[in-house]
């Protein structure tokens, strides 16, 4: 009775290329060359895209320079709305950053080996998002040239930062997060750089990649230490991810401003961060997958799994929305109630609020259906939608709370200036400049990990056959086999 169901299930699974990944790519050599080819082949399309992003990045440079030259007055900010676009952009980017580390570190610990094909890309995204995120708080200062005053150093005047404020926490969190992400990313890269070194056409390339490969030779001893260190880094990165956006959320919740002063912020922000980050991973992955014909490396099963993650985080986010509104109402506090029940849903920014809420809550509901989870077009549109809506969410949290606080006499509207827009759009340019450079010069699919994944899954399949003829299709998805297996 259960049999047919199982078979049907099996057939469905067959439709998604089951593991092992990278079937029909020939032997390891062929696979390696496939994955490294983007490093050696130059393409016109790439140059065009790179140039476009470059122009946008230039817009960022112009806006930033102008801001520093003239002052924050160049923006639309005012009193009461002293924080607006720049901080929104900051929170948005740093949120996006979270998905990378989440995918690579968190999933390792859970033994989700399918991450192998996508983690490099996700980690790179994290780094570049953090580069942006790091710039905004400094630009945002009234006197940016004194940003280092937030860092404790023995000054002659004995002036120290005030660690009761959340902003120095931010400095610590972001600095740590960037450093750790970078180390994690580079550590992961070393074996592939070695491969690139040994595969690179031409002396120069060989020397450059050789230098970065640090003389890696894939010795068993190296692999062992490497495995240990990499796991520990993953173990460190995971709580770090949680802490970073929690700290960012504290920037708001330590204030007593209605709409900011909320105890659910840390989990709420972390979930939102991963949600937006996963959306952007999809957004980047789908075109890359298409352009470089990696459908058999980044399989539809990857898309399926990421979509599921988006659905899960999306539901948690929806819950947070309901929760904070409920708490505001339940608190009975007139200021809280005004912010959540009037200022946001009915105030001057109501349309953003409603658009944002709808996009963030309804879009992921598509992913209840496998067909949609694996439909490239749907995925791309949805991810862009979420990506943008999560920016709007931060805007709503920041601006609608500030523009109407305690004393009605000080209420005032906020409208961005061209510089605000320039910085936002420009920062997207900066991101893509870095991202395209990454695609061009760095092995963006972890070669050795893919090879290993292929080797292990094949062997496991064999074992299954040996053990008892017809293997349950699930077995082909070997993700339940611990990566750390074989450790003494």
């Amino acid at each position, binding site marked *: 009775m259960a049999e047919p169901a199982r078979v049907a299930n099996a057939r469905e699974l067959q439709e998604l290329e089951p593991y092992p990944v990278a079937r029909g790519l020939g032997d390891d050599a062929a696979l390696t060359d496939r994955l490294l080819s983007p490093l050696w082949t130059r393409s016109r399309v790439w140059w065009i895209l790179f140039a476009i992003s470059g122009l946008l990045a230039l817009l960022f440079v112009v806006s930033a320079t102008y801001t520093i030259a003239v002052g924050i007055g160049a923006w639309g900010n005012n009193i009461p709305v002293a924080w607006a676009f720049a901080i929104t952009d900051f929170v948005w980017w740093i949120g996006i950053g979270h998905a990378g580390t989440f995918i690579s570190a968190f999933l390792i610990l859970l033994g989700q080996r399918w991450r192998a094909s996508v983690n490099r890309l996700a980690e790179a995204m994290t780094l570049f998002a953090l580069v942006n995120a790091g710039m905004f708080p400094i630009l945002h200062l009234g006197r940016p040239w004194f940003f280092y005053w937030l860092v404790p150093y023995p000054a002659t005047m004995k002036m120290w930062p005030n660690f009761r404020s*959340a902003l120095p926490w931010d400095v610590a969190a972001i600095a740590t997060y960037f450093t750790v992400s970078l180390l994690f990313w580079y550590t992961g890269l070393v074996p592939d750089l070695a491969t690139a070194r040994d595969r690179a056409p031409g002396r120069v390339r060989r020397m450059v990649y050789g230098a970065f490969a640090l003389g890696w030779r894939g010795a068993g*001893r190296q692999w062992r230490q490497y495995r240990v260190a990499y796991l520990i880094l993953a173990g460190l990165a995971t709580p770090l991810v949680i802490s970073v956006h929690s700290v960012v959320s504290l920037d708001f919740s330590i204030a007593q401003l209605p709409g900011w002063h909320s105890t659910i912020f840390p989990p709420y922000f972390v979930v939102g961060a991963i949600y937006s980050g996963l959306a952007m991973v999809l957004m980047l992955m789908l075109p890359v997958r298409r352009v470089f014909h990696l459908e058999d490396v980044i399989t539809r099963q990857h898309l399926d799994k990421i979509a599921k993650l988006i659905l899960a985080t999306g539901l948690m986010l929806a819950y947070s929305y309901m929760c904070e509104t409920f708490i505001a109402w339940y608190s009975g506090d007139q200021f809280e109630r005004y912010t959540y029940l009037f200022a946001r849903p009915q105030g001057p920014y109501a349309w953003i609020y409603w658009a944002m809420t709808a996009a963030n809550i309804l879009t992921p509901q598509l992913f209840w259906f496998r067909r949609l989870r694996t439909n490239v077009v749907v995925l791309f549109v949805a991810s862009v939608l979420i990506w943008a809506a999560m920016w709007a969410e931060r805007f709503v949290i920041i601006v609608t709370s500030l523009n109407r606080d305690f004393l009605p006499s000080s209420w005032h509207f906020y409208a961005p200036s061209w510089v605000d827009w320039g910085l936002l759009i420009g920062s997207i340019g900066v991101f893509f400049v870095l991202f395209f450079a990454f695609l061009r010069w760095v092995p963006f699919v972890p070669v050795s990990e893919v090879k290993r994944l292929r080797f292990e899954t094949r062997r496991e399949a064999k074992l299954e056959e040996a053990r008892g003829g017809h293997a349950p299709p699930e077995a082909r998805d070997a993700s339940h086999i611990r990566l750390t297996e074989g*450790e003494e």
Partner: protein
Amino acid sequence: MLFSRRERPRFLAEFATPEEMSRALEALRAAGYRELETYTPFDMPRTTPSLGLRRPWLPWIIAVAGLSGGIVAYWIQWFANAWDYPLNVGGRPVNPVPAFIPATFEGTVLAAALAAFFGLFISLRLPALWHPVFDVEGFERATVDRFWIEVGGVQSDLDARELRRIANEAGALRVVPIGMEAA
């Protein structure tokens, strides 16, 4: 004839598949060879035991580093706000433990991560852009699709011949000595 300790040769055996390599590795170990090393394009945790390594000490370094990182982080905050220049800031206490936790945590992670990264490469004696094995022609495929075993501690021609036999039985493509021109 016995080799003098100085000129004991080391041999590299090349294999086309990981299976053959691990079979050879087991056999060599069984035959009493101890100075074994593998070179593989990807991590093969299952082969590690055959290399007979001691427990890694790296985790302990990292633990210690992380701990001290946390302590330093908290100390800086306490020193700055409570000891060196205490100020009345909004009537808040000068040593508010909860407020100092976030930065302390970040300090812990940062120190630990740095220890992990540098500990790794220091323990591997990297960067080292040159290594004798790199001189073996065809070795560059060790990072692509070839699997190698390095055997050291070969004391006599007898040993040498023995290991060639084991390797070849396991399906080695070739066995070459390192350091000196192939004999």
